[in-house]
């Protein structure tokens, strides 16, 4: 019954059209992010969606150095820095402290959102164990992975989130080896939902779909417990394209099927448009070439590389148990996809 109420409450706070979104900004002027930065847009969504009763924790990364240079901080809500690998633990410590202080009557009892954000390195690489540990406790905290597919404030280095074959300063094509990044990108949300029974809500998002993103942050905070959101943020500097195409590239990542939009709600996968139409076969995926050819980081790709990329994406939808999500295939059991 309580579950039901909570679910209802979550859907009551849903923003129906972009015009209904709150006008107040809690991540405002003063940041120094690059032109066309989608991660900055994500920060704005998270602050807008969460509102003023929020504590934001930011791990080292481009969103730390660009947003919170002293004198010019863009955060209206309280904001605390954490170390590169510390977001999970920092969120846990903050949430635990609020719980203890409220229970013991040392501060006023009220819901306070705890949101920690971290980049590729801070979440998917060195910080993964901390994020995982935070997901096993039942404190109310939300961890957001802002994924620009590289280490973006140290001059674009390869991370485990960099896509196959992309050029970074750690993966430069050369005379003998054209493809230096041969690892395939990690799937973080499936890893989180498969491994942590405590978690009731997780999602992928993309700032090219603002309403979708705003609502996902709302739902995560309303459903409560440890929650996780993975956002793919096109990065003009790292991906090497003209800043005006940030939005277009975000849309293309979804329409080519490279970046499926979905939510994990209480044990079930729910697809969001346009991924929903793709999975249900109503829309055809666009060729990945359209996404790849618009970015300088793939300029060294040959036909063969594009075909390989396409084949890997096709596999996500044709061979996986849950299309685009779980990289496994069961041989004996047919799982009902409701």
């Amino acid at each position, binding site marked *: 019954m309580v579950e039901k109420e909570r679910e209802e409450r979550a859907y009551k706070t849903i923003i129906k059209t972009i015009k209904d979104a709150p006008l107040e900004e809690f991540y405002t002027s003063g940041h120094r992010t690059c032109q066309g930065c989608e991660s900055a847009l994500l920060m704005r969504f998270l602050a807008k969606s969460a509102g*003023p*009763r*929020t*504590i934001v*924790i930011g791990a080292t990364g481009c969103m*730390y*150095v660009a947003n*919170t*240079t*002293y004198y010019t*901080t863009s*955060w*209206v*809500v*309280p*904001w*605390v*820095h*954490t*170390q590169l*690998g*510390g977001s*999970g*633990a*920092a*969120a*846990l*410590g*903050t949430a*635990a*402290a*609020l*719980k*203890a*202080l409220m*229970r*013991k009557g*040392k*501060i006023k009892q009220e819901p*306070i959102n705890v949101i920690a954000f971290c980049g590729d390195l801070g979440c998917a690489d060195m910080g993964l*164990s*901390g994020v*995982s*540990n935070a997901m096993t*406790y039942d404190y109310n905290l939300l961890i957001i992975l802002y994924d620009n597919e590289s280490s973006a404030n140290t001059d674009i280095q390869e991370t485990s989130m960099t896509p196959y074959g992309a050029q970074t300063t750690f993966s430069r094509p050369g005379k003998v080896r054209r493809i230096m990044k041969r690892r395939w990108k990690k799937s973080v949300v499936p890893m989180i939902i498969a491994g942590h029974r405590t978690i009731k809500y997780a999602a992928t998002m993309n700032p090219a779909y603002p309403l979708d993103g705003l609502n996902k942050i709302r739902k995560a905070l309303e459903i409560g417990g440890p929650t996780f959101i993975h956002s793919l943020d096109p990065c003009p500097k790292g991906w090497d394209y003209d800043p005006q195409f940030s939005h277009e590239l975000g849309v293309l990542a979804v329409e080519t099927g490279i970046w499926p939009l979905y939510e994990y709600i209480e044990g079930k996968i729910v697809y969001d448009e346009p991924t929903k139409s793709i999975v249900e076969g109503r829309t055809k995926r666009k060729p990945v070439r359209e996404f790849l050819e618009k970015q300088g980081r793939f300029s060294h790709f040959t036909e063969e590389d594009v075909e390989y990329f396409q084949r890997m994406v096709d596999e996500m939808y044709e061979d996986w148990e849950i299309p685009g999500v779980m990289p496994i295939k069961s041989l004996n059991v047919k799982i009902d996809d409701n």
Partner: protein
Amino acid sequence: MTETRKLIEKEVLMNGTQAVAHAAMYADVDVVTAYPIRPYTEVMDTISKLIADGELDAEFVIAEGEHGQFEAVKHASLVGARTLVGSSGTGWMYGMEAIVVTATDRAPVVAIIGNRALDDPGAYGVEHNDALMVRDVGWLLVWVDTAQEAFDTTLIAYRVGEDPRVLLPVGVSMDGGFLTHAEQIVRLPPKELAKEFLPPYNRGKYMVHPDNPISVAPQVNEDWVMELRRQHDEAMERARNVIVEAYDNFKKVFGRYPGTTKEIELPENPFVEPFMTDDAEVILVGMGTVSKPMKVAIKKMRQEGYKAGMLRLRWFRPFPTQDVMKYLGNTRVVCVVDRDYSIGSPNRGGAVYQEIRSALYDLDQRPKVLGFIGGLGGREVTIQDVEKIIKIGYEHRDTPITKPVYWAGVRGDPW
């Protein structure tokens, strides 16, 4: 008044780690984060039981490693919670990044450090190098000698660290094995007295809360780092007076001097424990439980005509420069026994040796300073070792120093 208070004190047999855990319970900590490593772990074992038994109301978070453990308490402390954390040896090293920013973010967490050797080779005996890794980054550091002192000093650590004039983390260090696991009688005062002694933690305008929307640790580069480091240093300096106040107040509230079970043990000095120093020609200097063989050897050697004494350092940061000058300034030879090493340092001596020599440098009449590295990795510093150290010191009363640093008791080295 003292009499009535003594009546309600409880005498309990417990080891050093359990004493710290009980002090944290008396301090009513809000958040505790744990990750296991010997020999500090029993602090958390005890805390877990105290919470399970309903004697302590706190959030008990098991971290995924020491980095997370220290990161979590740092943030808990920034939102206004009183916290307990701790580690040993390589675990303390693993958390080092978070440990450093705990100090620079001015989060007054209290950490118990069960001193342990650094790997490799795997060893869990005492060595002070682990705690000394933070000597330069703005942690207050105190070494305790008995379980009673561990209990009392932990209460003092909260009071000093959380003082608005200080706001710095405190490392309560104790010798692994010799103190973490040695049971002694501890006098537990009534809880009301602890409340009287320890005010609630109040971060004031630095508290992270939606009502106080501040940005903590924004990036500053060359614009402000100099000023921040200076403020940090000044806070450490202010801690000196706060420590003295805390010890005085402890005595008033509990009716006894911290670290002792006696009513008042003279002479009183929060920073150092002098022992037979008044007429001593050779004074031994050490930290932690090495004081035990030292005291026995000194008493024995005095009967043989050697005028020896001891100065045990309690607080290592802030370093008690004035007290070191006062107690060591009139002696002939100072023999520093380091349970640590600083490989490649001046004279190849230990860290305490370097600090003592540096503190004495400004005196017009300086005593000679000899360094002894001993008891590494949990090896015992025996009474015989100390006797030998006193004899070596005595030989140097009138002769110049040819060998400034000895390794006390290394196989195959006739020191």
